[in-house]
């Protein structure tokens, strides 16, 4: 019976959380859930998927899958897809997923729906809700024909433990090597845990209220607590004062960022700054000046001295995290 085929992504020897999210969501939507996991060492990881809704797990493992190469992965997945003949194909819209999903769809001769934030079932169709125009609107999109290929933005669904049958089957795929043209020469993963401001999901930013370069340590400490997707930023005033390098500058003349969380510390919110971070999903402002324009843009405002608030916040978050 036609069901859902999930692409499970392997990164650094682990299955991505997003893959579990879509697997459990697929199970929730109903029908058989098959998962295709590709990667060197995938076999050992495959059983984990059973807990999260996978009825059938196809494993594509081998040294040729050490690094993600679009063509190789697409060939392998397409072969599995042909056998499964699913009505829906889902994947997490990670950096890799964004590259992989449209290629798979085109290979199968169907369309794809990118970066969905919600899925609902309407008869045979899965309707995907996805932000368009930089989040200024949402589109409800559905595919015309099966398989309906949909990528889902990470963190859209929580990972739920729903047991699936969990039968693991190792698949031997035949790759047409002549078509695999791209060669990964090297991969350099950032040594620092700080991502670039433009990609960071969380940015802790400081402005004139920081009073000096030495105080940015405070913001770095806070950012570290949020994990590897967090980094620090600075307003033009702080950069002009020489407290932070230009690469940290957020604003019209610096970087335009759109993180999930932007914490503005001691930033008044000059228009140039707002132009660079106004699309952040959640904005927190900490400033002792209650009239600071940043509060008009902030979802949450703390009117107090940042030198009291931030250390206390660090302690509180440590408590929450246990």
């Amino acid at each position, binding site marked *: 019976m036609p069901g859902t085929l999930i692409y499970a992504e392997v990164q650094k020897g682990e299955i991505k959380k997003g893959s579990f999210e879509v697997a459990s969501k697929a199970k929730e939507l109903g029908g058989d859930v098959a998962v295709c996991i590709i990667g060197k060492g995938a076999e050992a990881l495959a059983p984990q998927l059973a807990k999260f809704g996978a009825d059938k797990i196809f494993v594509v493992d081998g040294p040729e899958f050490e690094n993600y190469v*679009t063509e190789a992965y697409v060939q392998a997945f397409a072969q599995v897809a042909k056998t499964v003949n699913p009505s829906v194909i889902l994947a997490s819209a990670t950096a890799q997923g964004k590259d992989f999903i449209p*290629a798979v*769809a085109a290979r199968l001769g169907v369309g794809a729906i990118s970066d969905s934030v919600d899925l609902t079932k309407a008869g045979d169709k899965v309707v995907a809700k996805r932000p*368009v125009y930089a989040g200024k*609107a949402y589109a409800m999109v559905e595919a015309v024909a099966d398989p309906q290929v949909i990528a889902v933005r990470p963190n859209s669904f929580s990972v739920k433990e729903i047991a699936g049958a969990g039968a693991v089957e190792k698949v031997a795929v035949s790759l047409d090597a002549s078509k695999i043209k791209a060669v990964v020469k090297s991969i350099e993963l950032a040594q620092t845990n700080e991502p670039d401001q433009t990609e960071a999901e969380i940015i802790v930013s400081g402005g004139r209220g920081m009073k000096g370069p030495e105080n940015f340590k405070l913001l770095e400490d806070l950012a570290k607590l949020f994990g590897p997707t967090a980094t620090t930023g600075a307003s033009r005033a702080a950069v002009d004062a020489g407290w932070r390098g230009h690469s940290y500058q957020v604003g019209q003349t610096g970087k335009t960022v759109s993180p999930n969380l932007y914490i503005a510390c001691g930033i008044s919110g000059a228009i140039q700054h707002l132009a660079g971070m106004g699309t952040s999903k959640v904005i927190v402002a900490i400033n002792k000046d209650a009239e600071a324009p940043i509060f008009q843009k902030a979802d949450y405002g703390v009117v107090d001295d940042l030198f009291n608030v931030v250390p206390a916040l660090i302690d509180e978050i440590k408590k929450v995290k246990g």
Partner: protein
Amino acid sequence: MNTVVCIKQVPDTETLIKIQGAGIVQDGIKWVMNPYDEFAVEEALKKKEELKAGEVTVVSLGPDRAVEAIRTALAMGADTAIHIADAAYAEKADPFATAAALAAAIKGSGKAYDAIFMGKQAIDDDSAQVPVMVAEMLGIPSITMVIKFDVAADKSKATVTREVEGGVAVVEVPLPAVFSAQKGLNEPRYASLPGIMKAKKKPVDVKTAAALGVSDGPKTVVKEMTLPPAREAGKKIAGDDAAAKAKELARILHEDVKIV
């Protein structure tokens, strides 16, 4: 080096988006070239200048107004353009249909190309599918999220740096191939006034989808558009002192925002 650059005309990021049925109200929108496509155009121009030879062809699908974006690319320095000026097709086109039209136009032009550049995504539907799909349809490799592009002197292959999760990967690929441009690849030039004036005289080959032989409709359909719920007015966190406010903020970040 001969290159093709696929561009799209999109609403300016700041434009007010109003919903009408399954689409948006077109009146009052300021249309611009997709910002990521500017990186693509720039890279094509840079390679042409670097190798001191070649032609840059711009291809775009869109209604008549899309020619303005094409002129912008020509003003930056592109040589010729193909405009798939088909409002009806363009309006309904999903990424698949768009890619099909672009691929057909590239094939149909008979132009030899070493590389196809595009922005990593268009900032209207943010799908980020077209570059990969065009590559699939043309049967050539695609490399997405490129932030550095080097081409071998004999134009046989390119060595590119692309963004991957948590870092970068260096990939070598034989040409021709499709490359999608990420911010950081270059700094797009500002068209000079002589460039703008010359662009008015550069050839734009106008085609319809039917003439290109693409008739398949879109593979995905937008059923409905909605506006996101209005942003709630900013909430000032109350508390007796800084510590209390910090505690409440930590709670909000944990329970409401769900980030901690």
